[in-house]
């Protein structure tokens, strides 16, 4: 029971932090079409966050709702992977982070469709349709920018090389992940990782980008609450209202 609560928090926080990051680009996208896309993706992820955190709160049974789980927990209690808290950076960084996330997210939701927990399967069934659309878009942009000008190619390659070290954690399972796999509530890491590497490889080949080594050194710890320095600043902004005016409602 406890493992499932933790697992749901991870899914909720992954979607929430990436949504918050993308929301910060509202009105600052490099083109109007991109601005709308970033904020629409942020909106989808926020909707998914609510479904995961509401379920987590109900499962925990201590009366914590989605808002309390989102706005009244500190960085070390956040369970998102480090990938989603990496800075927006240049547009190459934003899109490469999105592409890595979308690829993993798409295959994870596909796996969760078969979860032994019917409510997880229902949420995944909703999320996978949105994830498919997100992945088509981010993969398309990786190709267009990677196989674009010398400058866009160089930036995309640099972004891929920088962010690659945060992709290992997606497939590094701990006791919580393994308990979920044992319950047939979540897919195993090996199949997910193989699907991820295959899809990234296909898109990178089309984008004329060099794929970083799958055996490279990988960062870890986000899922256990050990974060990069960026998360604290993200939470400071996101949680301000609830911290300053506890219990405030619209």
């Amino acid at each position, binding site marked *: 029971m406890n493992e499932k609560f933790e697992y749901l928090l991870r899914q909720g926080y992954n979607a929430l932090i990436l949504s918050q990051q993308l929301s910060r680009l509202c009105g600052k996208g490099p083109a109007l079409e991109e601005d*709308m*896309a970033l904020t629409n993706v942020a909106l989808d992820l926020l*909707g998914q966050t609510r479904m995961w955190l509401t379920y987590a709160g109900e499962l925990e049974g201590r009366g914590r709702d989605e808002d309390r789980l989102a706005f009244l927990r500190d960085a070390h209690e956040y369970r998102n992977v480090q990938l989603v808290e990496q800075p927006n950076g240049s547009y190459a960084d934003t899109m490469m982070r999105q592409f890595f996330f979308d690829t993993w997210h*798409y295959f994870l939701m596909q796996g969760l469709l078969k979860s032994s927990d019917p409510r997880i399967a229902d949420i995944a*069934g*909703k999320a*996978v349709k949105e994830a498919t*659309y997100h992945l088509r*878009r981010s993969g398309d942009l990786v*190709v267009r920018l990677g196989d674009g000008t010398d400058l866009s190619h160089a930036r995309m390659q640099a972004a891929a090389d920088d962010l690659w070290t945060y992709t290992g954690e997606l497939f590094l399972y701990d006791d919580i992940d393994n308990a979920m796999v044992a319950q047939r509530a979540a897919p195993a890491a090996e199949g997910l990782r193989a699907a991820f590497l295959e899809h990234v490889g296909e898109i990178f080949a089309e984008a004329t980008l060099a794929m970083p080594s799958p055996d490279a050194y990988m960062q870890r710890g986000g899922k256990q609450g050990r974060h990069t320095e960026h998360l604290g600043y993200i939470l400071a902004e996101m949680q301000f209202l609830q911290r300053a005016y506890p219990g405030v409602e619209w």
Partner: protein
Amino acid sequence: MKTQPVTLEQVWAWLGEVADPEIPVISVVDLGIVRDVAWNGDECVVTVTPTYSGCPAMQVIADSVADALRLRGLPKVRLVSRLSPAWTTDWMSEAGKAALKGYGIAPPGQQAIDISGLRAGVKRRAAPALDLTCPRCGSRHTELVSQFGSTPCKALYKCLDCREPFDYFKCH
């Protein structure tokens, strides 16, 4: 047992008059988001399903459904949200699609399974819509401008013949 004064058909008809808040020409029934209507004693239970998980119109839709039924004299109305099976544009009625087109929004031109990535895995590009025509001049000579539009459910296209931009209700 007392017979119910209002039939389910009547409730469905009333719901057919509740407009989507973003696209007022289509009703929540034609949009396919009302999944069930049932009596539970003297309480009318309406089951709705969200379109996109973050769609901000959902709360407005739930409120307007409840308001519409209360205004017509139903004393007890309860709304239930159901996630599965996930909403798809395949559930949109033909009348709804025609209303969208008349309003200047090209209706979904594919079956959702073909673009869901569930059948053949995800490809970089979705298969092109079979029936994506300009809602103004009817030309099939159209081009995608932006994958996202003014609401989560739409994309932006332009017609290369009459040169007008138009919204496309994405197949989902």
